[in-house]
Each structure stands twice: as structure tokens, then as C-alpha cells.
């Protein structure tokens, strides 16, 4: 539904040229909820704005539906107002001089094909979708933040575009409302079956809402996959540290196999090796804190046992976070809050080889 090929965008700033996007390819299927996730400045918003036509890439091709909207090679640039898209902006961009009804009616009036009765019924329908029916005559500035966000959504959906673009639409809501809206939003776009391209820097939003996540860094896509794949099998240190908490143990591949072995300063770790790894390669072993447990028993065939001293214990409410010094490294783990542990005591940590993943350094 959305196809981007070899997209490159650069800006002219006071300090010279900035390459915001350097060679992005992606393919969003019909009805998919596709998220671009990354820290600020990674090029995710620039990519989204290129799809909308608000940025002018200097290389690449973009297809929305069956419309070629951008092809630098063939000198095709379709302006935003001729693209079949709806978009929700980070600031919502609700026009303060128009009331709720007129804000939503704006895209229909620009189409100039609809009669006024038709406009009325379509605006009502869009407002009902976001539960703003009854507020038609309210001046837009007199809405709460959550209502403005839903109004922006209604305006983006009213002309029934093939593609919905969402630019951090939840970032201006307070924490509780954001949580509720996450599920409502996903439920709504899934019910309508509309293809959605979503931009966020919030890993939790990305994990809970998306069908597919593309993690971006430095203007490129670092890894793409389902939320589960991205979390369970991060491809490199950046993805592992950006999504969730991770322990990192640097080392060298000692023995190949399944599991292989990596020599680290905290001992030899049995773990899954990256494809094509050879003995002697520098790698980083990634372990999620929740995969580490305390255990006094012997090591199983596919388990690592490490001994260390508890350096710090932080009570988090739903968990105890412990920091255990193992050799020169500290490993963080999460325990049940009722666990009986004491600072300074020596403990044995169990790390299943299946959840230890070596990535290339």
C-alpha cells in the first residue's frame, strides 16, 4: 500500500547540509499498522513527511496505493493536496478560527465534489467514530487535549483516504490518557482496515500497537520485524538498548555451535551466535534482566551459571531490581518484590543460553 524505495532526504541548515534520511526502503501492506520507531533526529518524521509530500527528497521513489507520488529519477512530485492521505500532526494542527464541524468539513470542501448534505452526514459519521458527536458547534480552541487529538483524527479520516499517517499523535497527552488512547486508536484503525504509518519514539507505543516495527537510527532502518521479534531478538546493541532494558557483556567467540560459546570478562557464556560468526569475532552478549534468575542448583546443559555479589537493590513497587557484580561487570536482574535478598550477599545467577544472544560488536 505504501512502498518507499531508496529514499534520501537532506536539509540545508545554518551549519551546512544535514542528511536526515539516507536510503530507506519499506513496504507497508494493505491494512497493516506499521511503526517507525527511533530516537529524535533518526529521520522517522522526515520519512513520514516525505510520504505526505511535505518534504522534498532528492532521491528515491514513493508509491501510495497505486499512485506514484514521488520519483526523483522520473521527476514526478505530486503535491500533498493531490495525495490520497490523511494525517494527524504532533500538535494536532486544529485550526483555531473554525469550529469542530468546519475543521472536519475542510477536506471535503476542498474536494468540491460533495453536496452540503453529503458533507454534513460524512462529518457526523467521522465525529461519531471518534466519539465527538454533539460537539459540532464548539469552537475548536475550547476542546481538551484529548478531544483535539480525536478531532485531528476525525479530520484525517473524513475523506476516507487509503493511507493514514500519524506523527507522534499521543505525545502531547498526559500519561493516563495516552495509555487508554493507545488501544482505542489501534482498535479504530483496525476496524476501518486503513493502512497506517505511525511515527513514535515511545517503545511501549510501538510494541503495543504495531503489526510491524521498523527501528531507525541515523537516517536508516536498523531492524524491522514484529514487536515480539524486535524485543526478543534485537539485531545489535542500539536496538537492544533502545527497546527495553538489557545487560551487555562484551567478548570474543570461543566456540561455534548451538549454543555457541563466548569468552567474556565475566566468564564463558553459552549463547546464540549471530549468523556467519567465526571463532575470534568480537561480539556483545545481550541478556534481558527478566531472563536472569537466582538459582543455587547446578548448571543445566544449556544454562550459564555466574557467581556475583549483590551491589545494589532498588525497590520498584512491582519488582526488585538488583545489580550483581560479576567479575568486572554489573548485571541487572528483576526479582519478585517479596524475594529475600540482601545487599552484599553472594548469589548465583542462572542465564538460559536460549535467552542470551550475541550480536556483532
Amino acid at each position, binding site marked *: 500500500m505504501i512502498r518507499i524505495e531508496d529514499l534520501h532526504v537532506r536539509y540545508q541548515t545554518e551549519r551546512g547540509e544535514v542528511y536526515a534520511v539516507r536510503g530507506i526502503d519499506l513496504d507497508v501492506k494493505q491494512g497493516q499498522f506499521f511503526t517507525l520507531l527511533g530516537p529524535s533526529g533518526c529521520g522517522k518524521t522526515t520519512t513520514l513527511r516525505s510520504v*505526505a*509530500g511535505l518534504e522534498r527528497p532528492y532521491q528515491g521513489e514513493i508509491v501510495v496505493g497505486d499512485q506514484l507520488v514521488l520519483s526523483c529519477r522520473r521527476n514526478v512530485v505530486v503535491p500533498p493536496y493531490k495525495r490520497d492521505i490523511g494525517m494527524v*500532526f504532533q*500538535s*494536532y494542527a486544529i*485550526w483555531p*478560527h473554525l469550529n469542530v464541524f468546519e475543521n472536519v468539513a*475542510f477536506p471535503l470542501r476542498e474536494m468540491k465534489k460533495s453536496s452540503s448534505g453529503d458533507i454534513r452526514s460524512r462529518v457526523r459519521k467521522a465525529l461519531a467514530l471518534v466519539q465527538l458527536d454533539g460537539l459540532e458547534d464548539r469552537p475548536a480552541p475550547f476542546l481538551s487535549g484529548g478531544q483535539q487529538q480525536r478531532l485531528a483524527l476525525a479530520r484525517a479520516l473524513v475523506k476516507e483516504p487509503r493511507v493514514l499517517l500519524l506523527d507522534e499523535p499521543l505525545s502531547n497527552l498526559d500519561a493516563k490518557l495516552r495509555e487508554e488512547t493507545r488501544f482505542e486508536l489501534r482498535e479504530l484503525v483496525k476496524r476501518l482496515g486503513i493502512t497506517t504509518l505511525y511515527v513514535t519514539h515511545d517503545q511501549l507505543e510501538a510494541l503495543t500497537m504495531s503489526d510491524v516495527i521498523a527501528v531507525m537510527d541515523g537516517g536508516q532502518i536498523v531492524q524491522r520485524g514484529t514487536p515480539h521479534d524486535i524485543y526478543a531478538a534485537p539485531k545489535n546493541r542500539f536496538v537492544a538498548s533502545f527497546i527495553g532494558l538489557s545487560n551487555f557483556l562484551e567478548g570474543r567467540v570461543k566456540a561455534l555451535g548451538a549454543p555457541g560459546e563466548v569468552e567474556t570478562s565475566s566468564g564463558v557464556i553459552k549463547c546464540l551466535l549471530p549468523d556467519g560468526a567465526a571463532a575470534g569475532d568480537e561480539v556483545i552478549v545481550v541478556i534481558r534482566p527478566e531472563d536472569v534468575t537466582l538459582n543455587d542448583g547446578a548448571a543445566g546443559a544449556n544454562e550459564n551459571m555466574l557467581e556475583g555479589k549483590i551491589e545494589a537493590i532498588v525497590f520498584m513497587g512491582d519488582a526488585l531490581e538488583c545489580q550483581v557484580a560479576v567479575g568486572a561487570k554489573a548485571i541487572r536482574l528483576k526479582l519478585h518484590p517479596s524475594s529475600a535478598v540482601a545487599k552484599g550477599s553472594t548469589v548465583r545467577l542462572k542465564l538460559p543460553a536460549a535467552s542470551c544472544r550475541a550480536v556483532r560488536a
Partner: protein
Amino acid sequence: MNESLRISLWQHGIFLLVLFLVLAPLSFLILGSFSTARLPGDFSLHTMGLVNYISVYADASTLDLFANTIIYVGGSAALGIVLAVALAWLVERTNMPGKIFLYAGVPTTLAMPGMLQAMAWVLLFSPRIGFVNTWMKDIFGPGAPVIDVYTLEGMICLEGVRLVPTAFLMLVPLMRSMDPSLEEAAAVSGARPASTLRKVTLKLLAPALVAVMIYQAMTALEVFEIPGILGLPAGIYVFSTKIYAIVRTATFMPVYGQANALAMVYVLIAVATTVLYTRLISRAERYTIVTGKGYRPRQFDLGRWRIPAFIAALFFLFISIVLPFVVFLYASFLPYLQAPSAAAFKVMTLKNYRLLAEYGEVGSALRNTFMMVVTTATATVALSFVVSLVVVRSKFWARKLLDQLAFVPHAIPGIVMGIAFFWLFLKLDFLPLYGTIWAISIGFTISFLSYGTRSMNAALLQIHKELEEAAYVSGAPPWRTMWRVFVPLMMPTFVGVWIWVVLHAVRIAGMPLILAEGPGNQVLAILIWNMWDEGYVPAVAAIGTLLMISLLLLTVLVRIIGFRRHAMQMVGG
């Protein structure tokens, strides 16, 4: 045609238009200063030399001219800033009662035309006919001291008072948003209130105060009406009036180029102060005393000085608005000029107002003024809007240059701009503009372009970029977006700028005096100037009274719109 090509053509068109409107008159001003031809119309590149410069700057009286100008500009700027600081401090940082009168009243004094204020002062303090001086003679006999307004001191006092409202408007937000914790830090460090004021408060305000003062000095340097009414009759010249005097005598002696040569100094001073001013402003921003938070600074307790302070502040309003108005109102009912007395009130008549209605020149001047003012205001709004749109909202390659070009006319005094256009219109005689009100309109439009673009830039920056982009992705092409998003959101600014231009264009005499060419393009300001020159004082008083009333009403309208615009910004974007 390709959309982006069409937009690019528009942008280049606007850029070239502004480039021409600003640079063409300036080039003619500079070329004219080297012209040795008898008349501007005869100018050619073969008749050029340094004669004008030599005759102007070798003249001994030029030294006096410099001295007078420096005293006048320095004196009035200093007086203006002292009064403005005092007033701003009283309303923002003390518990003086009745502040609302000053918040409303001080900006309203902007509506008073300087020319009419100067005339009112003449009616009060002229040595021969001044009411105050007549009374003094009546009371103390012929040996009574005479207050003479036709002096440098008179000019300094009036211009000083006239500079107050602008400085006040600049200083009030500064004093309001000053972080009180900076002063509190000094207090807990052991400083007494007086040394806190001296070592912290004033030091923090210093860069801004200097910037405001330079701005004031530029304004004083450019003003023509005050030194024109108070200085010319006594032969006391400052730059602006000297240039005018040269042009006026040039009707008999072909020395037009000398005015240009003199104006070059003016241009240099103006450009230098502009550079200094922008540098100071950028330095002032480094002192981040204005943090944008809504502080409520502690108020200084005036104690038993509360009421005297309020009376002193009201006295300023009395001098600026009430006094000139009362003097004009009184004089407008007189059959002939005389100091107020029981006898004078008995012979009062409406004759002057009746004469105005019958006097043909008044009608044509009103029609001309109306046309000139409406076209100037409309053209300024339209041109400023499209220029600001390119400057603020586009990626046009020369948008910074365009912004600076639009700011240049701000540094050029109206009287110099008048001479520049005088040459331009005479030389480009294929454009039938010389001697028409359109010439004045064009001149004013360029003069006000800097104010217009500053206002529009600020207002456009207030409109979040995504409000515009939301219209594009909703299917609105650029011109529809301009029409449905920008124009309604900018409407308060349009009206505000429009009325501001009307308020100024209607009363400035400098440029129209240079471009005036008989009754065909006589505007109200010129009519008043000429009638005053010829001594029809009661008739001038009648026109002046009506003009003051309409300007005050317009100002009140601006204030109301200003409040609405403020409300709109609070909720918008």
C-alpha cells in the same frame, strides 16, 4: 504549468518588486547628490561632480547644524527615556493607584500628531502671541519673563515628551517579565533595596535601555514636524529641516543636489545606528532576564508618595493629550487669535467650522487624503503580507535578503525618502506619477513596509507550521491554504497594521511636503502646514480639532482589536 515553478515565479516577482521599490529611490538619491544639472529632470551621467558636497560641507553653518542636531537628538532621547522609565516603573513595580489610566492613556498619546502638538505649544509659549506669555505680561507687567518655545530647548522638551509612549511600550513588558528571584538573590546576599536597584535591577536593564535609547534617537533624528514648526521660524536648523529648507529655496536657486549631499550624512548615520541597534539587541538577548514565565514581581511600596506619583503621571497625560486638544478646541471657536479671557469667550463663533465646509481646498485635500491613506494602508498590508509569507514560510533562496531589504526604509527618514522619490519620479517621467497623490502613496508604502513586515513576520511566526501543512494534506492547494487558513488567522493583524498606517500616513508632513505639487496632490497635513504658515490659525485649529478627534477614535479602535488579537493568540495554534 508545474506547481513549484509557478510558486518560484511568484517569489521572484515579489523579490524583484521590493528590490526595485527600495533600491531605485536610494540609487537616485545617491546619484542626485553628485548631479550638477540645474534640475533633477536634466540629470545625466555626464553632469556629475563633487560640487554639491563641497558647497554643503565647506559651509561654516554646517558645523552649527551638526551641533544643533546632536543637542536636539541627545536631549530629547534622554528626556524621553527618563520619563518613560519613571512611568513604566511606576505602573509595573510600585503600588501606585490608578494604573489602568496609564496603561490605556500612554499608548493613546501616540495618536496625537506631532505637528498639532507643536502648534499647540506655539499657541501657549510663543513670545509674541503665546497665551501663557500674554498672561504673564498681564500679571507681572512688560518686564515679565518670557518663555520662548522657538528654541532648541522647546524642541527638546516637546520631542522628549513625544518619545515617551513608544519607549513605555518597550519597557513595560521588560519590567514585567524580569525574574524577581534575581533581585531576591541580591537581597538575601545582604544588599539593601537601594543597592539592589543600582547593582542588579538597573544593570540587568542596561542593555535594553541603551537599545531603546538608540531607537529613540533614530526617531528624533527623523522627525520633521517638531523642528519644522518650532525651529524653522527662528532659523534653528537640524538635519531634517535643513534638507527641507534647501529643497524649498531650490525653487529659485538650482541646488537640489545639495539636499541630496546633506541627506547622505543622514543615510550614513541612520545606517550606522541601525547596525549598532541590531547588535545591541542581539546582545540584550543574551541577558535572559525575560524568561517568558508569568512573574508577579514584588511591588515597591510608595507609602505617602502614592498619590503625588499618580498626579505626576496624570500630568504627563494632561500635557500630551488634554492640553493640545483643549488649546485647539478653544482656538477653533475664535474669530481671531487671542489669549483666553472673559471677552474671548463672549465672541466665540462656529465660523471657522462653517468656513471649512465652504473652502474648496479643504474638500479636495480631504478627498486626496482619503484616497492616499486608503491606498497606502491597503498596499502596505498586501505587500507586507506577501513579503512576510515568503520570508517566514518559504525556502526561497533570498528570503533573508528580502527581509533586510524590507527593513532598510526604516532607517531612511521620510524627508530623505521624499527627495529620493522626487528624483525618481522626475527622472522616470514615462511614469506619470510626479505631482499625483499616487507618488505620495508609493513613498509612504515603502516607508511603512518595515513596520508592516515586522508585524506580519511576528504574527506569521505565531501560526504553527502544522496548521498550514494540515491544510495541504487535507487537499487544499497553496492559494486555497492562504485564503482559508492564513487570511482568517491573520485578519486581526491586517486590520491592526491597516489602521496603524492610516494613523501615520494622515499626519506625516515631511515626505508629502517634498512631493507636493499644487492642489492636485495636496493632502490634509500639507494643507494644515500651509495654512499655519500663512497665519490662518483659527482655521487650522478647527481642522486640527476634527483630526485629533478622529485619530483618537481610531486609536481606541486599534486597542480594541489589539485585545482581540491577544485573545486569539492565547487560544490559537
